């Protein structure tokens, strides 16, 4: 319940200069924006563009604009009817969004923390996910879920629950790692005719800046990005961990080891082609995510690689993820729990020397 976005991020490497380096998938023209500003920008842009888009969630409205202020200013700009404060009843208001979406609106739902998405679980996994398959009704909403830890928020404000939803048929799941993608994936998610869960990475909110195209900007769902080229091994990751992987890769570059980094961007649909393409080239793969390693998304990716790129593999596919424990609060515990560039570095050294 803490609601505090002001924990002290540690080990999350902020990229604060203009040369963010993802020139291949972030447009180079545009303002410098933080990750969180890019989300707000994406929301406002699409609300401007489509009167069917409305925002709902706890505390999103009025002058407040949500626990993280992502929706601040939207009520002023678009009116209270398009930015609705909800009582603390996730099951009902996500269920209501199901109805709105069936009637042609495009609600963007904020759950206050990704952790609380479980409270609305049935409305997501039972109703929204199955409706198109069962009788053709289309449920085009987006749930924005501020996820991930590393900021001393404890077991209930640090969760990464994406695996539940990737395993559930009928949902789409995205997890941007850069400001440009944050905007572009959000707009694409809103335009998609299906329920999309959009996992925001809290540790990147204000620590990460990058160029964000003005106005219209979309990033297609289901398309990963190779954010660093390299021939010796592939790291597959998403969200905040992409930056940890890049940091580790830079360290190894000094030793003459070239790591390729794939940023999945979408977790469902998963861009297996890009992943397999890279691993076929490098012959070595490490999957990294902050979520619990056990039966996480990394398991699917590793299993897919192990099956479909078997002949190309020069080493076992490795995985790094959170421990199989709740996310602990205290810094030494959370740091032990959580993957970071040092742990990635250790794993990569092992992988390339296999």
């Amino acid at each position, binding site marked *: 319940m803490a609601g505090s976005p002001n924990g002290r991020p540690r080990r999350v490497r902020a990229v604060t200069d203009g040369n963010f380096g993802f020139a291949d998938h972030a447009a180079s023209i545009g303002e410098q924006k933080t990750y969180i500003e890019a989300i707000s920008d994406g929301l406002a842009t699409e609300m401007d563009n489509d009167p069917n888009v409305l925002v709902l969630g706890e505390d999103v409205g009025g002058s407040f604009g949500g626990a993280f202020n992502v929706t601040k200013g939207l009520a002023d700009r678009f009116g209270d009817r398009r930015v609705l404060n909800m009582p603390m*009843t996730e099951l*009902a208001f996500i*269920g209501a969004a199901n*109805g709105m979406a069936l009637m042609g609106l495009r609600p963007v739902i904020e759950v206050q923390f990704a952790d609380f998405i479980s409270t609305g679980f049935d409305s997501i996994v039972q109703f929204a996910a199955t*409706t198109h*398959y*069962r009788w053709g009704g289309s449920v085009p909403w987006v749930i924005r879920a501020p996820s991930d830890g590393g900021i001393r928020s404890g077991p209930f404000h640090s969760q990464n629950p994406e695996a539940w939803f990737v395993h559930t048929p009928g949902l789409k799941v995205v997890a941007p790692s850069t400001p440009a993608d944050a905007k572009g994936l959000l707009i694409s998610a809103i335009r998609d005719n299906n329920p999309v869960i959009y996992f925001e990475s809290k540790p990147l909110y204000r620590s990460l800046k990058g160029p964000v195209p003005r106005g219209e900007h979309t990033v297609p769902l289901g398309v990963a990005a190779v954010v660093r080229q390299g021939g010796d091994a592939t790291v597959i990751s998403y969200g905040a961990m992409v930056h940890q992987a890049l940091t580790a890769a830079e360290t190894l570059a000094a030793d003459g080891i070239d790591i390729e980094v794939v940023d999945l961007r979408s977790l469902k649909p998963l861009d297996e082609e890009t992943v397999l393409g890279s691993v076929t080239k490098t012959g070595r793969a490490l999957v990294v995510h902050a979520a619990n390693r056990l039966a996480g998304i990394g398991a699917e990716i590793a299993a897919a690689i192990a099956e479909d790129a078997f002949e190309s593999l020069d080493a076992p596919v490795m995985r790094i993820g959170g421990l199989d424990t709740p996310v602990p609060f205290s810094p030494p515990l959370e740091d032990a729990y959580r993957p970071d560039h040092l742990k990635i570095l250790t794993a990569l050294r092992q992988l390339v020397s296999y």
Partner: protein
Amino acid sequence: MLDPSGATLSDAQRREVHYWMRLTRTLDDQIISLWKQGRGLGGTFSQRGHEAISVGAGFALDPDDVVAPMHRDMGCYLVRGMTPARLLASQLGRATGVNGGRDANLHGCGDLNLNIIGFVSHLPQSMPVALGSAMAFQYREEPRVAMTFVGDGSSNTGLFHETLNLAAVHNAPLVVIVENNQYAYSTPLHQQMAIEDISARGAAQGVPSQIIDGNDVEAVYEAARGAVERARSGGGPSLIEAKTMRMHGHAIHDGAEYVPDELLATWRKLDPLERFEKTLRRSGVCDDRALEAVTARCRAEVAAGVRFAEESDWPDPRTVAQGVYAP
């Protein structure tokens, strides 16, 4: 309490409502006998006792209104234009069914051309969906209403209360019909709740409510129509508790031995269809011949539906993975 609407059925409407009730009864009986003969597929729900509610409330809606019925509301599907043939094909898992064989019995019988939202098992998931539809109408300033149905069992769920609350806060054009049939599967009311009337749950959220005789189709219509008109004119949500009794088991396989015989005997005398037919006869709206003609017509329609369904193709297994996502 809700104000009485004063809306009453004309004689022509009475005849129409009677037809839908008879059709519901005939179709339900047919389904039961199909299943008993081993011609069914999976489980299916009994409708007996609920005809006045599902038909009477459904009839109170205009075509542009949206309805999210539940598993005792076959009558509502019929009133809204879903044919016995489609419903039977659906129950038998055929390609020609409402959902092409993807969902079981009345589940997933959604068709937005008929403004019907298909339900999922997880009760009462239809309720917030109906609310969201109502909120969409408000948002676009359309004069439309959403109606949904829940059981006594569902009225215990958190989602029931959350939805009423949200509807009240937004003054949404939503009508909730509670079909209090005294049991949730095998569980009698007193093991489900410690209150006398479910309608009391409206007050806890600021939703006006009303108790009606759920076996009197005219009373159901009048209350429902009143609530619909009220919602349409900006008066907000309402709750109607229709008291009735589930006359068969929960579903086809359930003998309902847990229901006391006397209780059933009492309610058998209050059968909604027989009662309405008596009224129609007494008031001269229909004579015996007319009623028999309706019965014959319903039999024929249902029989044709069975033929259609049983002769329909099975879905093509190669389509199994299609349509998970909207294009």
